């Protein structure tokens, strides 16, 4: 008997418009527990809008968004401790050291100072920042700061981690190392991740499934990626080409 798949994020016929501008049109998608899903799209495809609706900072115009069984906008408080976000920029508070930034979420969730510190140190160690705990953000490199940001998100042990272009501002080598490290940690601790990016390589490399968004429309493509596909450069290149093709088309009415 196989265990039932638990859905962590579900969007059903979700539309969002800003005035007359339709950003998302009847979008339906889901992310299951333990999955790493990449949400791909070119600029203006509505990735950030979808992310904000899932975070609960934006209300959909119509349709239903559920995160861990709750409406993230209406039941904002109920997702306390269940969701963490790593943003495009590290967003570290400059007056807090690396470990103090890492433990911030735990302190907000009411974890005792001693336990928060211990867990923060553990996560900094896991993201390979042992020895830099007491450095202030301005004393760290861009890659190190982004690692602290990831540790801060992982540290609260959330059901869901949202990554909003978290690696896109880093150089290629640092970005690749960080992606690999993050994917390894996320899989090891069975974290559910929704990863927003405009870089196809990033999505193919670390996700179990890619969802391609089209500007002002719904989903243009959805594909699963398994280890076999990842190991086959020819098939991977084919998929890359298909995704690039789907990303580059205009709004739904043009196609």
């Amino acid at each position, binding site marked *: 008997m196989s265990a039932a798949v638990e859905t962590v994020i579900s969007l059903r016929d979700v539309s969002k418009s800003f005035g007359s501008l339709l950003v998302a049109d009847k979008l339906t998608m889901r992310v299951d527990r333990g999955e790493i899903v990449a949400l791909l799209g070119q600029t203006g495809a509505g990735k950030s809008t979808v992310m904000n609706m899932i975070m609960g900072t934006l209300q959909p115009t119509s349709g239903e968004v559920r995160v861990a069984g709750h409406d993230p906008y209406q039941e904002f408080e109920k997702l306390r401790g269940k969701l*963490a976000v790593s943003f495009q920029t590290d967003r570290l508070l400059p*007056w807090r050291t690396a470990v103090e930034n890492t433990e911030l979420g735990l302190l*907000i969730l009411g974890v005792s100072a001693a336990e928060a510190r211990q867990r923060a140190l553990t996560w900094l160690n896991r993201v*390979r920042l042992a020895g830099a705990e007491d*450095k*202030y953000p301005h*004393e760290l490199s861009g890659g190190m700061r982004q690692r602290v940001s990831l540790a801060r998100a992982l540290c609260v042990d959330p059901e869901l981690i949202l990554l909003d272009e978290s690696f896109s501002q880093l150089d290629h080598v640092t970005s690749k190392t960080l992606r690999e490290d993050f994917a390894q940690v996320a899989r090891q601790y069975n974290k559910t991740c929704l990863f927003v990016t405009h870089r196809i390589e990033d999505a193919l490399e670390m996700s179990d499934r890619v969802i391609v968004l089209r500007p002002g429309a719904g989903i243009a493509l959805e594909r699963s990626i398994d280890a076999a596909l990842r190991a086959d450069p020819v098939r991977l290149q084919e998929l890359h080409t298909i995704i690039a093709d789907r990303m580059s088309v205009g709004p739904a009415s043009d196609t």
Partner: protein
Amino acid sequence: MSAVPKPVSSPAAAEPIRREGLIPVLVVVVGLVVAVQIASFYLPPFVMPSPLTILKATIEILQTDYVHIGVTALRLLVAILFAMALGVLLGIVMGIFPRIRPYIRALVIIDTGIPALSWMLLAIFWFGEPEVRIFFILSVILVPFYALSIFDGIRSLPRDWVDMIESFRPRRWQVLRYLILPHIVPYVLTTTKSVIGYAVRMVIFSELIASAVGIGSRMSLAQSMFRIDSVLGWTVILIVLNLMLQAALTALEKHLLKWRAEASVR
């Protein structure tokens, strides 16, 4: 786990800071002493006494009137701490309660338009107790500086930080504790450094008008007795007091803002 990558070192900005320290102050002091000495050769003693005479008067004041220095310093300290607390509170209320903001802002702006002399004269009418008068005068003059500065600080809070902290679903007091209060510390310190000299001048004026105790009242007494050397002696003490307060604030700033990267422009 592997070794930590080499951190990026902070810019070498220590040298310009050192150049802003004690040496320029000493150079200016020596220059002023020389200027006073030269002036004393050409002017009568009741207009410009020599630096030595001023020094003797200063020593005499320190030996006999130190209580007045303590009283003035205490008044200054209490008023600044109160103005800081009330100003920060008003600034925070303006920053986080948009509905109340226009009313408090209007009140603060009107306050800044009232001349210090008006407050001093009104304080004499309204309050009989000299301590209350001085406290009131200093408070109404200093509070707007803090309130407007803190409000400005909250307005400049990066949206990215707010979104980051809100992603953890904090209570409102947690946003205040973990984000807003640490963010406004530099604004509080900068405002204090800006107003300290002004506050010293205001406390002296207030004492001159509204009290028989304190540096201001002693300066008034020296003036009435044609003791220009004492007036200049008190002035020297006030300058030193101001420099000491600025130095203490700089030290406090270095301690509280050690997280801040110093930048220098070539």
